């Protein structure tokens, strides 16, 4: 599912490896989340938000009309 993780991460100048370390997952998982190829659990979404100092709304929210296209 599409998300703003990459954008948020770039804005904060954090690389994938550091974000992975902070959230306790592998770099590959972060990469797949950014590409929209893996849907993280709510727990991991929150961990990513805490690590990037952002909110779920900013990072993962998708408007309803776009949601249908994604799935």
């Amino acid at each position, binding site marked *: 599912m599409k998300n703003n993780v990459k954008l948020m991460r770039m804005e904060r100048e954090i690389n994938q490896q550091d974000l992975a370390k902070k959230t*306790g*997952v*592998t770099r*590959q*998982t972060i990469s*797949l989340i950014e590409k929209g190829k*893996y849907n*993280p*659990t709510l*727990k*991991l979404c929150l961990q990513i938000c805490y690590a990037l100092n952002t909110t779920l709304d900013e990072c993962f929210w998708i408007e309803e009309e776009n949601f249908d296209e994604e799935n």
Partner: protein
Amino acid sequence: MKKIKDERLILRNLKNIRIAYVIQMVGMIIVLALEGRENGVEEMTSSPLWIVLLLSNVILILLSMPISLQVYESKPEKLGKMGMISIGIGVVAAILAYVSGAGIIPSALSGGLLALIFFVISYFTRKLAKKYQEE
């Protein structure tokens, strides 16, 4: 070995275990079928592999019970009805055992045991169904 903490890898690992389980099951069934064809059914059922196969399937069914209960949202049955069904199953099993040549006492014992097992399983199923209904 390092403990896997990544949720994606945990899921992938579980999927791998499922594939290995299916292969193992198919292998066991093939080995037992070959043994049954060569040495007869009795030899096959006396093999430890047969017990492992039965045990793992019984455990799988028991572990799957809470999942199916949540999927089908079945209503909890009344205790009396469950008891009657259990006794019915026990009586039928005892009659079948007696007809197939077992003595009265072994037939009654196996029937009673089957009824008891069925009742215990139904009782826990009912308890789980009640719990899920309340959630």
